[in-house]
């Protein structure tokens, strides 16, 4: 009889233990995630603090910065220009089909220019540059780490932060605003092409509406976003490449992390900056 009771109680005890161990595992997993987050945040903070500290110290590698400006700005023009052109064209077409339902077709020029200048220009240019430049930076620095080229810099009395990171980040911050300005203009022209040649709008009236509606604040907010996105893209590319793991897998993982983290941060900071500029 006693034995039977014991057997009866055993499954309940096992269930309780199983439940406790599951809770224990969940809490341990959560704790590990928190620790990992805190550790990564600390590492990124130290990385950027060191970089900022090195920015104000001689020597300044102007030649390297100009090379990065060409790579980030000039060489990104085709991909950013094409993206902006088709975005402006699609925007005009979509706005027309939507606004035609309540006879508001005349607002197309306003929608295209404000969307491009405030939002789509900086965000799309940022995402395209993150894919093109952020990935390349992470791969280049990751390979330099794996092949001991960064160690070699130290043995040659050269600070790797000052030589590798500072020129890239400064170039990123300086290159993105003009790139976005070009994207804005191309995007608006994309909208104008569709409006005039497909939808039959008057060319002069479209352009006058565009110029009249856009304000300095609209353009300025987009350029500030561009500079911040430039910092994010180059910062993430450099951070993940500089701290790349070993081998081809380590470099590949660093490249992926650089693009993903930069893309997410661009979207997060886009909201934060929009809130700061336009929230009443």
């Amino acid at each position, binding site marked *: 009889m006693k034995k039977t009771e014991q057997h009866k109680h055993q499954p309940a005890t096992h269930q309780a233990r199983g439940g406790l161990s599951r809770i224990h595992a969940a809490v341990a997993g959560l704790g590990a995630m928190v620790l990992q987050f805190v550790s990564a945040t600390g590492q990124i903070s130290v990385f950027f603090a060191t970089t900022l500290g090195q920015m104000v110290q001689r020597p300044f590698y102007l030649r390297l910065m100009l090379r990065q400006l060409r790579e980030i700005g000039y060489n990104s023009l085709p991909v950013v220009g094409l993206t902006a052109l088709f975005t402006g064209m699609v925007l005009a077409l979509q706005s027309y089909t939507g606004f035609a339902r309540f006879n508001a077709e005349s607002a197309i020029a306003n929608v295209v220019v404000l969307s491009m200048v405030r939002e789509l220009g900086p965000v799309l240019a940022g995402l395209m540059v993150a894919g093109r430049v952020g990935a390349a930076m992470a791969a280049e620095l990751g390979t330099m780490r794996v092949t001991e080229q960064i*160690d070699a810099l130290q*043995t040659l009395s050269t600070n790797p932060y000052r030589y590798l990171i500072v020129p890239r980040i400064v170039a990123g911050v300086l290159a993105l605003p003009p790139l976005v300005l070009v994207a804005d203009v191309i995007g608006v022209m994309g909208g104008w092409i569709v409006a005039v040649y497909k939808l039959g709008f008057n060319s002069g009236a479209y352009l006058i509406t565009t110029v009249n509606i856009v304000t300095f604040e609209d353009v300025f907010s987009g350029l500030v976003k561009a500079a911040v996105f430039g910092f994010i893209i180059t910062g993430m590319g450099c951070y993940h490449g500089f701290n790349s793991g070993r081998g081809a897998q380590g470099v590949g993982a660093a490249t992926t992390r650089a693009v993903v983290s930069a893309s997410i941060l661009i979207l997060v900071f886009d909201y934060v900056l929009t809130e700061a500029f336009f929230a009443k």
Partner: protein
Amino acid sequence: MANSDKGIILRGVSKRFGDKAVLDGVDLDIPIGKSTVIVGCSGTGKSVLIKSIMGIFPIDSGQIWFDGAEITSPKQRRSIKDRFKFGMLFQGAALFDSQTVWENVSFGLVNGQGMKRGEAREAAVEYLRQVGLSAETADLLPAQLSGGMQKRVGLARAIATRPDYLFFDEPTTGLDPIMSDVINDLIRSTVTSMGVTAVSITHDMASVRKIADTVAMLHQGKIVWSGSVKQIDSSTNSYISQFVNGRAQGPINTDV
């Protein structure tokens, strides 16, 4: 605490990576003006040791002196930056692949000493000649060179700043026996002619016999034997004896 002895002195140097103690209280004396070779099996921490001496890896505990000046902490190391010059030949040469051969060789002269590029190119060609490479190689990219040539360029870059201390990380790894001998001869002649203090790490016994004045053996994070190169064959120390003779049996665990 100060130490008046010349050369490099390590006391109780330890370095961990996560749970693994790679260096576990290393005590080592590297005499000035001599060529010291640190031997040991693969994965025993030889590269970590040399990079810890160079300051590339900060150590967890212990002390390091260069010619009586303590350089354990980064701050102490910065304070002697202008007093000593270092050069290093890396295992894979570690040439900057976006720069030409002459730009690699003169990198320390241009970026560290502010030499003009025209002057630096001439100096680079001269250093290339010293390591047996012609002026035609100066404008090539590292990817256009063979492994042996890359090592020579790496050596030219290491000596271009006229260092007081030269470090060689597995200088003959990946090279055929003839090219290995050429590199060993170059290292020996460079060390002798420049009068520098050299520290090399290798597991190639032919290199040891050619370039070493003194030898130290690293095993499980500790120096288990040190002595003159002439003593390595006659030593009764079971570790160095097993290593020199390449035996599977002995105190060094060869399980994989």
